[in-house]
């Protein structure tokens, strides 16, 4: 019988990261839940695979001239970080402030945006929106470099209100225009040259030139504007200050955070949590970290209703399996094939399909993606040469004591070590029946890759193929 504490901690680590291997889970259990939440929400010292090592062996990840390698570069970080919350929050904002490579042809600048999400994503929402408005990848993505005092372009102004803060129905068309006016002049350096290079996908003569923000004062409309009932000579930062004060903004962000970190579906219970998060938003002065603290400490989050109530997105599937197996801890040839699997499952990093990002939840699952998901996880978790799987084998050996493990015990231990993962009686019965085909597991005197180890690998492979493994 798995303890509630263990289940709860594993649940927290799935949501705030990519799941935990047994060692990581035990380390967090020692701290206790509240301390774990504090530590996770204040990441420091990620200790991820160093940039210099990656760039030495992967020239494509040094230059980031095109997509190849760019997703892998981020994936390396997700795999090796001690602070996966940084990567999850970056992934959250990457999905919400969806900015895609296809129009930009600028992986370096897009990854600079992701890095901004990593650094600022748990902080103040007003600051984050300001950083976003000055992010050159976003500026080009939503054409704010074409937003001029004598000819406004409403794209960024509209999406800022519709998709990044208040949500449709909470502002007027006039507000959009005034918002756009306020952001005139918020551009990038050498905008015409950069725009033509982006549109032509030009890499000549010497590869890409990464972008930087530049405020063009001469192109800014500094006239009076009326936005959401307030009037003034607003510039972009003033608009943002007004946006973040709105109840609709708080609701929008709280709901999206809840759906990503709490549960795919919002029930009445979920709505209560969202309201608490809204209250925290205002009480804290718009701090994302505090909102998440509210969520992770809510009764709902700690309840059975919240556990396994999200479908893992492809990034969580791939990175979670890799972290459990302990693979790819050093630069390796062919890493792009691994990062491409996320794309095949429907979630290519740096390639959100539209400005709305990805539709999460059960939409991740179709007959094609399900096969990819199962095959990938099964392959990672069944390789007995992988360090994480070897660690599981050693733990099973210790649990066996001087004897063997029955099929029932082997099943329960594997479910525990890979999660713990809660499965239905039906699923458990299938797993036990499979284990019974091979009898008791005898790891005494086991050697690398022998039959007893393969027995473990095959058991883990089967767990990866359960429907419950698809859930976070």
């Amino acid at each position, binding site marked *: 019988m798995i303890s509630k504490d263990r289940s709860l901690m594993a649940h927290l680590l799935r949501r705030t990261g990519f799941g935990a291997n047994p060692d990581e889970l035990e380390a967090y259990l020692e701290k206790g839940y509240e301390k774990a939440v504090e530590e996770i929400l204040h990441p420091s010292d990620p200790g991820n695979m160093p940039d210099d090592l990656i760039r030495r062996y992967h020239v*494509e990840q*040094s*230059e980031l001239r095109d997509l190849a390698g760019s997703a892998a570069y981020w994936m390396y970080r997700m795999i090796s970080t001690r602070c996966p919350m940084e990567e999850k929050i970056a992934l959250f904002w990457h999905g919400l402030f969806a900015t895609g490579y296809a129009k930009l042809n600028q992986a370096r600048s897009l990854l600079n945006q992701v890095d901004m999400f990593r650094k600022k994503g748990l902080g103040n929402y007003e600051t984050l929106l300001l950083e976003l408005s000055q992010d050159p990848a976003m500026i080009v993505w939503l054409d704010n470099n074409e937003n001029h005092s004598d000819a406004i372009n409403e794209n960024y102004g509209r999406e800022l209100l519709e998709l990044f803060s208040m949500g449709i129905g909470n502002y007027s068309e006039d507000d959009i225009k005034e918002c756009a006016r306020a952001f005139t002049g918020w551009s990038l350096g*050498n905008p*015409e040259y950069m725009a033509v290079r982006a549109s032509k996908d030009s*890499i000549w003569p010497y*590869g890409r030139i990464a972008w930087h923000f530049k405020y063009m004062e001469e192109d800014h409309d500094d006239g009076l504007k009326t936005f959401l009932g307030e009037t003034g000579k607003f510039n972009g930062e003033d608009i943002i200050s007004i946006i973040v004060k709105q109840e609709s903004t708080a609701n929008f962000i709280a709901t999206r955070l809840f759906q990503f970190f709490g549960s795919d579906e919002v029930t009445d219970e979920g709505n209560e949590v969202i309201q608490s998060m809204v209250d925290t938003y205002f009480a804290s002065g718009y701090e994302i970290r505090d909102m998440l603290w509210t969520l992770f400490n809510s009764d709902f989050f700690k309840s059975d209703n919240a556990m396994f109530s999200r479908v893992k997105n492809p990034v969580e599937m791939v990175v979670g399996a890799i972290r459990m197996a302990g693979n790819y801890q050093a630069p390796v040839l062919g890493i792009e094939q691994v990062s491409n699997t996320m794309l095949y499952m429907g979630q290519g990093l740096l390639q959100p399909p539209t400005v709305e990002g990805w539709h999460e939840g059960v939409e991740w699952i179709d007959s094609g993606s399900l096969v990819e998901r199962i095959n990938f996880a099964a392959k990672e978790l069944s390789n007995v040469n992988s360090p994480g799987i070897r660690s599981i084998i050693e733990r099973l050996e210790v649990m066996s004591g001087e004897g063997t493990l029955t099929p029932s015990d082997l099943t329960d231990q594997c479910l525990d070590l890979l999660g713990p993962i809660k499965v239905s009686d039906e699923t458990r019965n299938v797993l036990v029946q499979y284990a019974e085909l091979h009898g008791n597991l005898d790891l005494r005197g086991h050697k690398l890759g022998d039959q007893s180890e393969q027995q473990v690998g095959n058991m883990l492979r089967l767990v990866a193929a359960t429907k419950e493994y698809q859930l976070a």
Partner: protein
Amino acid sequence: MSTSMSPSKIGLEYVKTIGIVNNGLNGRGFANPYSILVGKDGRIFVLNRCDPNRAAAIRIGICNIDDEYLGEFGKGSGSGDGQFVWAVCMAMDRSERIYITDEYNHRVTIYDSSGQYISHWGTYGAEKGQINGPAGIAIDSQDNLFLVDQHNSRVQKFSLDGNFIGAWGSFGSGPGEFNLPWGLATDKVGNVYVADWRNDRIQKFSNHGEFVAQFGSSGSGEGQFQRPTGLVIDADGYIYVADWGNERVQVLDSDGKLQIVLKGEATVSKWGEEYFASNPEEKIGRDNSDLVPELPDHLKTAYHISSQTEPYFWGPVGVALDFEGNLYVVETNRHRFQVYRRI
């Protein structure tokens, strides 16, 4: 424009840039070059590391100072004869044969300078004479071949056809110890210099591996290094170091005292001008641009500055000298090399 620091007896004046990115499988231009050397007749050999999507294009390109692309050779990506996977560095012997290290295949491949494959040698392992991740390579005047054996944390000495002669080094940060070393060079009397990459320093040894001196420490200050990758020594004993992590080249005298710092000042190459002749809209945009802009504070590491400032070195990984003492600096991320005249 010379960037020498006074007092100094050496000056370097920027001459030109040669290069353009080549996205395809052949032809003029470079694809993430990793090494450069200049033959006696002035032919310039550039080793294209290539990214995995273009691995079939792995080759050595040949050009000259007049921007003529003279040809290329290589047999693509793989482990077959003449093929490469992760090609790193080159050296040339007295017969102008070219020796290329491959840190994935753990071997040295030899071509002649007309591009004919000759042979390869090297076996993976940690025993003496075996290799794990060869990187820097140099040949002294006595036909001794020195090889950086990065994952074995040592330098090995071979004959030109791969017979083991000697080795020294172990993992660490003390004298004679290494941490993922990269480039290697010899001087005219046969001393051996190693770009001790992750120790952020240059180490100097005798021809037989006795430690002589070390230069530099971690940092971005003058005379400090951040992951030095390549180096070359001229006839006067000046040491030219590709200070990769700091996106610069530093020149030291034979005592290790800093003489010059170069940041790169690339101009449009002839091949680049040919591109712009066919793409006038880009040329117009470029002419109206400030290619050395003021940058926001949050992207001010050397790497980020160079990613946004096209004339600066970006990934200066290898350096070479021609027989007149002119300096060639090859940049992985900019697919070009910059030439400096010794003054």
